[in-house]
């Protein structure tokens, strides 16, 4: 058993209001620079939709992630042979137009325009070329566009649905959407790290954050393609790739990452998961129907004395073990089994888990009449407006049973709380719902509490980086004694 600690995350999609505050917080801190304007380390997508960059989930286009190859996995579009073969031109790499051409407006024109009959306008100018441009698309161009021909209906997750099911999904009366905020998953089996020819990408041992060493990146661009979530971005100005750093300078000083901290809907949870690194290889190569279970098996019980013993032997700090025991992520993912990884079939073992959206409330259409009444207060989860097949394509590699189970658990909590707060439901019905998912009322209350009432400190249980030592996670203090600061010691300007 090789116990390590991983800072991991849960996003509760039922609570996401799609306000993009997280994206803006991230943008203002990290990517408001030349060459990085188009990057959204944190972005919020509408599902069904094509996302950012367009159709990122379609690995027939981008060849991201790993594919099962007997008992092991190999990179789909990169790797030692393919990577070095394609080093002069990477055939599957997304280009600027697959994201969008970033722009600003010539606001000054509003003030300096000569007097005339027309209202002066601020024309958009490209942030790449500086020239006037017609805006074609943006990072959230599919926002709220459920049912749209260009966006929602192009969602690659619809491929598993029959034509009739798709049509039913986009009926005006039952059309729906939910938001999908995405950041780097800081995977246990990161494809970006595996694909980097220079070895610039690495996973930090202490907390599992995946980083790109800017000094070693040589712009071979393989990580951009290999990351199936398209969360490694190429800075066209500096000629270096960049990605979400999970705000590690904030984490090290005990603060939540900016996107977490600023989340208006309080959908985000961050905490430690202890995992067994020896099991990674087998879990990544698990058969499709076992993928989620195999990944869940990697994560260990932080209360198990044997796990604690092995963790200590491995150098995991006691404070980190305590953080793992209080981790909201551990509760959502392992104890309550409410959160699932996004696209486990990419086989990167992502450490960002999603509680799928139970809303909107279900209704049926009969004879063209939208009927929101049902025998009980809510219909069964199977009549969810988003078909289980669709959700399964997102969160469980196509296993509808897994998603249905999660939805039933969420529904049981809802029924239970309705019973507690309003009391208009049949008690037998509630206990039946709880029994079906083997949930105690106490557990349902705890889930409700962490979902709806959790305080800042309950949502973000950040393992102390030991501030006095945190600088040592980056460099040997002895080497730089007498110097001040850390990070870039030269201006990050483009090379010749």
């Amino acid at each position, binding site marked *: 058993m090789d116990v390590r600690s991983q800072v991991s995350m849960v996003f509760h999609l039922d609570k996401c209001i799609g306000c993009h505050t997280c994206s803006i917080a991230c943008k203002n801190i990290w990517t408001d620079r030349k060459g990085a304007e188009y990057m959204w380390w944190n972005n919020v997508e509408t599902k069904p939709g094509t996302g950012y960059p367009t159709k990122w989930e379609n690995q027939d286009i981008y060849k991201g992630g790993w594919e099962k190859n007997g008992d092991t996995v190999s990179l789909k579009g990169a790797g030692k042979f393919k990577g*070095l073969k394609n080093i002069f031109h990477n055939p599957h790499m997304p280009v600027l137009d697959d994201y969008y051409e970033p722009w600003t407006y010539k606001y000054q024109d509003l003030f300096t325009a000569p007097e005339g009959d027309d209202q002066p306008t601020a024309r958009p100018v490209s942030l790449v070329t500086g020239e006037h441009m017609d805006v074609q698309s943006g990072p959230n161009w599919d926002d709220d566009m459920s049912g749209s021909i260009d966006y929602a209906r192009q969602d690659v997750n619809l491929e598993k649905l029959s034509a009739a099911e798709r049509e039913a999904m986009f009926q005006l009366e039952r059309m729906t959407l939910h938001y999908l905020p995405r950041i780097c998953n800081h995977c246990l089996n990161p494809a970006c790290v595996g694909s980097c020819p220079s070895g610039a990408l690495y996973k930090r041992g202490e907390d599992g954050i995946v980083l790109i060493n800017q*000094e070693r990146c040589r712009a071979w661009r393989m990580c951009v393609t290999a990351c199936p979530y398209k969360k490694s971005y190429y800075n066209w100005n500096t000629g270096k790739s960049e990605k979400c750093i999970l705000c590690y300078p904030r984490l090290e000083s005990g603060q939540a990452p900016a996107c977490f901290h600023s989340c208006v809907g309080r959908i985000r949870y961050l905490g430690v998961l202890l995992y067994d690194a020896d099991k990674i290889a087998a879990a990544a190569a698990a058969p499709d129907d076992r993928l989620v279970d195999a990944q869940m098996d990697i994560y260990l019980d932080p209360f198990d004395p044997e796990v604690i013993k092995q963790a200590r032997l491995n150098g995991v700090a006691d404070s980190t073990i305590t953080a793992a025991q209080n981790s909201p992520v551990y509760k959502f993912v392992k104890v309550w089994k409410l959160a699932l990884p996004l696209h486990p079939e990419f086989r990167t073992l992502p450490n960002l888990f999603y509680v799928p959206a139970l809303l909107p409330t279900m209704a049926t259409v009969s004879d063209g009449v939208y009927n929101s009444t049902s025998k009980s207060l809510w219909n069964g989860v199977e009549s969810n407006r988003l078909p289980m097949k669709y959700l399964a394509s997102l969160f469980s590699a196509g296993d509808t049973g897994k998603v249905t189970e999660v939805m039933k658990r969420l529904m049981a909590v809802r029924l239970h709380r309705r019973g507690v707060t309003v009391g208009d439901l049949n008690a037998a019905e509630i206990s039946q719902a709880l029994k079906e998912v083997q949930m105690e009322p106490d557990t349902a209350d705890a889930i409700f509490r962490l979902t709806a009432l959790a305080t800042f400190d309950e949502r973000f249980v950040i393992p102390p980086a030991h501030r006095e030592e945190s600088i040592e996670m980056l460099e040997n203090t002895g080497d730089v004694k007498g110097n001040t600061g850390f990070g870039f010691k030269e201006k990050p300007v483009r090379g010749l």
Partner: protein
Amino acid sequence: MTNILLFAVLPYAALAIFLVGSIYRYKNRGFSVSSISSQFLEGKKLFWGSQPFHWGLFILFFGHLIAFLFPSAVLAWNGQPVRLLILEIAAFAFGLSALLGLVLLILRRLTNRRVQIVTSKMDIVVYAILLTQIVSGLLVAYHSRWGSSWFSAFLTPYLRSVFVFDPQIDAIASVTSLSLKVHVISAFALIGIIPFTRFVHFLVYPVDYLWRSYQQVIWNWSRKHIRTSRSHSEGHKSKNN
């Protein structure tokens, strides 16, 4: 005098600048060492330029290297006319491929607005010198046949004399072929400007990727070592970055 400058001084100046400059840049300006690919801004035309250009140069570079290191082997291979022809035609084809690629790359850079934005002055120098190098090389190959044979007998001794610090420039100075002289001079000039251009990227070609493991975990401070250490000295500080 001019000959001494061009064939005895220039090589040493170029090699010295290359060595000192490259090491300095790698060590002290590591961030600037990059292939600064522009594929992200324009990907389709790049394919038709970059692939033939790089593969052509790649093969020709090793061809020259082999002729320099193992001249007798090349001469032995050329012993039969058929084999000589195969070698010469293949080499010429790769030269043409590099030229075609380079021309397409230049056109792409001149016409694509986005790529223009990331074009530096040194990129123009790079294109000029590469164009000189490839065109002169093709002229030499076409007019002074068969290069693969006389290279070993004629240029290898000169280059070797340079590397043993005893430059023998009589033979090269008496050459009448202008294209050959240009080819040699621009080759040294190319070596000399490596540290000041994007040429540095071929020095960091990631061969080590072949034998490294796919996953990389870096422990910045090995707590495991500290915890399990039996000595009083501090734990092992893992090598970072």
